[in-house]
């Protein structure tokens, strides 16, 4: 069988169980595709030997009939996840050479189910960015191209998105603090879901903003998202915010029947200056859900406009606290110091050398909004606004709404380098449709919904009720069937 790397998780799983293919064959196909795909700069740390060892073990389990869904399936792991004995540096110089002595809960759960790690994936430094241009490993390139121009795959899970869209692995883990799974999924024509805050353990994932961070899968289909999400979820005593709730069988939730479901269209997401193409995509998606039997209602989420400014207080505040641990003492980079330099100079030089410009900017903004005299005016005010943003959603779900449909991003993928001429605030606008979901702790999924006139993928986002990922995935599944998105990037690499 040729081009095994192009399979979905679901198809590969079924072929493995039927013994039509082996995990070693599948893994070798992905390692080959990964080697051929170096121009995308998606994979950063080679774990080929680990992968082949895991594949052999998985084949053993499959032969014995002990095969969970993920058994033998080659996936990529975002560099933000700590993987035991394998470099894990959140795409930052400050974690240069760091090899964790432990495994993140999410990657451990995937490996326990038999998943195979093809490699570690590039990302924005500490997951701070929307274009994958802040990485110490260099930019990731989107497999989709227009006129030979190199485009961004989005960020921060840009390596994950590019690797899955380019068929270098079957699926990948991502993390999402303000849109870092959903925006890159939309830019590369794949599916990405951020589950409810607390669904996945954050233990062993390098922390950015702890009240917003969630892990999730990035996959080629909604069914694959259901399969992989289920393997990633579950209570973990090592993360006190992880929910002690049973994890449903998400795949069986995919009936495609959404008759009578109430889908809301929030008027505040109709931004001024929104491209006609995005407007049309949204209207077409709405019509498809209506045709599938859903009831469409117009709703208002009045505090939407304030989500981004609230996010740019809360996320940097939490980051400034979380990133205080990088001090050159316990792990990673330490600057060389001059004669007479004390420990303070060592900290200051280490952090100046080890953190990139965007990370430094966010740490300092966070430091400022938490500093004496400004804590109430900025940080507490932002947390109050966050309460109101969540209430907006509670009110909408309170009238019986099952899911909310919005565009995933304000544009298609842009050129690498375009951000350089933008100010930070313009850059932050990339997350305008996704960031509300993190602030309210809700599940959100981005699915490919069409191509723009340049031939680039565009995504739609569905937002669900807390802990109702199964229902959300089913609505996404119905929309996916109606859209029938089958386009793939033309291989140029």
């Amino acid at each position, binding site marked *: 069988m040729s081009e095994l790397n192009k399979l979905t998780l679901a198809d590969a799983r079924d072929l493995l169980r039927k013994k039509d293919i082996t995990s070693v064959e599948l893994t070798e196909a992905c390692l080959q595709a990964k080697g051929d795909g170096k121009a995308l700069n998606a994979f950063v740390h080679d774990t080929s030997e680990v992968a082949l060892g895991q594949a052999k073990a998985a084949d053993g389990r499959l032969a014995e009939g002990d095969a969970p869904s993920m058994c033998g399936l080659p996936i990529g792991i975002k560099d933000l996840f700590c993987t035991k004995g394998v470099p894990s540096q959140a795409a930052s110089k400050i974690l240069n050479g760091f090899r964790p002595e432990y495994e993140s809960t999410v990657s451990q759960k995937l490996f326990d189910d038999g998943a195979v790690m093809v490699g570690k994936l590039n990302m924005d430094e500490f997951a701070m960015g929307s274009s994958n241009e802040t990485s110490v490993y260099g930019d990731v390139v989107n497999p989709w191209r227009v006129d030979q121009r190199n485009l961004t795959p989005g960020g921060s899970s840009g390596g994950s998105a590019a690797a899955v869209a380019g068929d270098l692995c079957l699926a990948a883990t991502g993390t999402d603090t303000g849109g870092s799974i959903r925006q890159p999924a939309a830019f590369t024509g794949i599916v990405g879901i951020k589950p409810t805050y607390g669904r996945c353990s954050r233990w062993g994932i390098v922390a950015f903003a702890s009240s917003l961070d969630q892990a999730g899968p990035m996959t080629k289909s909604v069914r694959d998202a259901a399969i992989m999400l289920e393997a990633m979820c579950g209570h973990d005593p090592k993360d006190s915010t992880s929910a002690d709730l049973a994890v449903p069988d998400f795949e069986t939730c995919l009936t495609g029947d959404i008759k009578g479901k109430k889908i809301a269209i929030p008027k505040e997401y109709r931004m001024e200056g929104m491209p006609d193409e995005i407007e049309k995509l949204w209207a077409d998606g709405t019509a498809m859900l209506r045709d599938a039997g859903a009831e469409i209602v117009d709703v208002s989420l009045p505090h939407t406009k304030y989500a981004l400014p609230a996010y740019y207080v809360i996320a940097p505040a939490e980051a400034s606290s979380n990133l205080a641990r990088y001090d050159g003492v*316990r*792990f990673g*980079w330490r600057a060389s*110091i001059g004669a007479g330099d*004390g420990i303070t*100079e060592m900290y200051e030089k280490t*952090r100046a050398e080890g953190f990139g410009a965007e990370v430094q900017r966010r740490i300092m903004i966070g*430091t400022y909004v938490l500093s004496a005299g400004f804590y109430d005016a900025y940080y507490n005010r932002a947390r109050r*606004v966050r309460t109101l943003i969540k209430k907006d959603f509670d009110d909408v779900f309170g009238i019986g709404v099952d899911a909310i449909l919005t565009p995933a991003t304000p544009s298609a993928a842009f050129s690498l380098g375009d951000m350089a001429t933008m100010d*930070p605030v313009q850059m932050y606008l990339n997350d305008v449709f996704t960031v509300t979901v993190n602030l309210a702790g809700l599940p959100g999924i981005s699915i490919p919904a069409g191509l723009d006139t340049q031939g680039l993928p565009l995504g739609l986002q569905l937002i669900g009720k807390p802990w109702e990922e199964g229902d959300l995935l089913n609505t996404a599944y119905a929309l996916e069937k109606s859209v029938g998105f089958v386009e793939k990037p033309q291989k140029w690499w």
Partner: protein
Amino acid sequence: MTIDTATAAKVAKLARIKVDDDALPAMAEEFNMIIGFIEQLNEVDVEGVEPMTSVTPQRLKRRVDEINDGAQQLLVLSNAPDAREGFFAVPKVVE
């Protein structure tokens, strides 16, 4: 609120990030742009609204107060840039 270079220098110091003096004016300007964006929040009436502490209503799980990990000195030190005699080594702290 405008951030001048002195404030920018103070923030950098608090964050323990060395910033050269000639980089401070540009940094202050950038901060002002971001803070200006954040100040939109002043338009929102937050009277009587509680600041969010937990996005999900559930109580944090508690566990029994007993030791379940430890005695891993070598593993803890394995990634240190400078570890000596079982300790993290740093420049002189006390004169």
